[in-house]
């Protein structure tokens, strides 16, 4: 392959070309192929995805496909460690070979993505402490608002604009560039946009995506490739939101108020029928002190509507003192850095009543 020509192709196209070449490679081509493959985990990932595509198109014609396990064995040393399943060892039996190959694909994608992380760890990292927010412009003119207690990395190439949100929440105002999709990766999802405004929040093992303007596509990490498009990747339009769990399951939520989605930029918290437990946790995202702790399942499950300044947890406590006034089972406790609102169980409340 002419190397200058190769440079102008997307990684996915390069992968496809290498697949053709590797059906009957010369020694030189074979060496070049390994060089290319080992130069970036992204190449590995794209190659695996290309193999998967080929497998679909050719109806599992194994005589013509690359040996994924061999690739895995060969490049594994080049790729960073990180929590790989112990049973990754390439194994085969004639009947289950496809299964292991598929499993290896998945594992390799995971390893590749993680290697990718490690590689870029030292660069293009943005993070905020509790209570901090950050606004910055990316090279393409897109603007990122990074919320409290968040961490993200940016990786731009000629083919794509990739952002990795490791934790927390960010709002993206994406500059239109049809040639380079803008993708936000989290552990459980990839959100792809061309030019739009949307919010991504990492919530434990789920990802919450809310669209303020335009349309985004929600992809699963497994299919993160320009070569493979899911038949109908879920699309979210302005005012729509969805959660994506770590199995890639997309669940639409109720319509969202687009002005409420970005209210956190003004450090405003908006609650729409949220539980007290959630509300307290939201304040705790923004305030190292005082922390709010709500104890008692029934109390935590009570729902409220409202709007607060993120840095005024005291206002919530003041309200609860009034609202819960007259309920003898509720106790307020304050320490230097924590406010506990506890609902006593029946037994302990009775004990309290008995005490003169």
């Amino acid at each position: 392959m002419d190397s200058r020509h190769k440079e102008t192709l997307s990684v996915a196209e390069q992968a496809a070309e290498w697949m053709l070449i590797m059906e009957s490679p010369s020694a030189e081509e074979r060496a070049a192929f390994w060089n290319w493959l080992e130069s970036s985990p992204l190449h590995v990932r794209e190659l695996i995805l290309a193999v998967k595509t080929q497998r679909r198109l050719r109806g599992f014609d194994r005589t013509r496909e690359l040996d994924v396990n061999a690739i895995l064995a060969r490049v594994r040393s080049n790729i960073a460690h990180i929590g790989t399943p112990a049973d990754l060892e390439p194994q085969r039996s004639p009947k289950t070979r496809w299964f292991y190959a598929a499993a290896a694909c998945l594992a390799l994608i995971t390893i590749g993505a993680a290697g990718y992380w490690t590689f870029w760890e030292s660069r293009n990292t943005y993070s905020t402490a509790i209570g901090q927010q950050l606004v910055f412009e990316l090279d393409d003119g897109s603007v990122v608002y990074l919320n409290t207690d968040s961490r993200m990395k940016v990786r731009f190439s000629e083919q794509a604009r990739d952002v990795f949100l490791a934790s927390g929440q960010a709002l993206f105002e994406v500059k239109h560039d049809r040639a380079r999709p803008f993708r936000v990766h989290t552990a459980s999802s990839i959100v792809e946009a061309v030019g739009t405004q949307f919010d991504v929040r990492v919530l434990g093992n789920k990802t919450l995506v809310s669209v303020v303007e335009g349309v985004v596509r929600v992809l699963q990490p497994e299919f993160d490739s320009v070569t493979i498009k899911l038949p109908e990747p879920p699309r979210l339009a302005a005012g729509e939101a969805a959660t994506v769990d770590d199995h890639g399951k997309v669940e639409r939520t109720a319509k969202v108020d687009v002005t409420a989605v970005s209210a956190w930029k003004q450090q405003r918290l908006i609650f729409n029928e949220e539980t007290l437990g959630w509300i307290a946790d939201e304040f705790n995202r923004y305030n190292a002190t005082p922390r709010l702790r709500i104890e008692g399942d029934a109390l935590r499950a009570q729902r409220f509507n409202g709007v607060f300044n993120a840095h005024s947890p005291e206002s919530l406590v003041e309200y609860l003192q009034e609202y819960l006034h007259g309920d003898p089972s509720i106790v307020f406790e304050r320490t230097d850095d924590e406010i506990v609102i506890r609902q006593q169980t029946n037994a302990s409340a009775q004990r309290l009543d008995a005490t003169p």
Partner: protein
Amino acid sequence: MGSRTRAFIRAAILALAVIQPASGDQDTALVEFHIASQPLAQALNAWAQQCGLQLIWPAGDVARIQSRPLYGMYEPMQALTILLQDSGLKYSVLSAGTVTVAERIANSPTVVSVKAPNE
């Protein structure tokens, strides 16, 4: 006017808009409201967002009734009174900057019924 000047003015207005909720006379200052007819909970949240006050009240069926639309310049409490008309709800002010809403009925287990003996 240069674009830099315009940008500065815009930034200044924005800064004022952010600072404004913290100032003491927010209760009487006129605010421009744009609140479409929607479930009351969301309408009141929009009200709080647009005037910069804090708001909290218990969720429930009454929070889901459809609100009347509200557009125009109003004092925040005047606007809230209009939004709550015919809802059976009334507001009370907890402390500077925080408002709560509760049902008017006498046996309501809420802040307002406790605090409003004249009802």
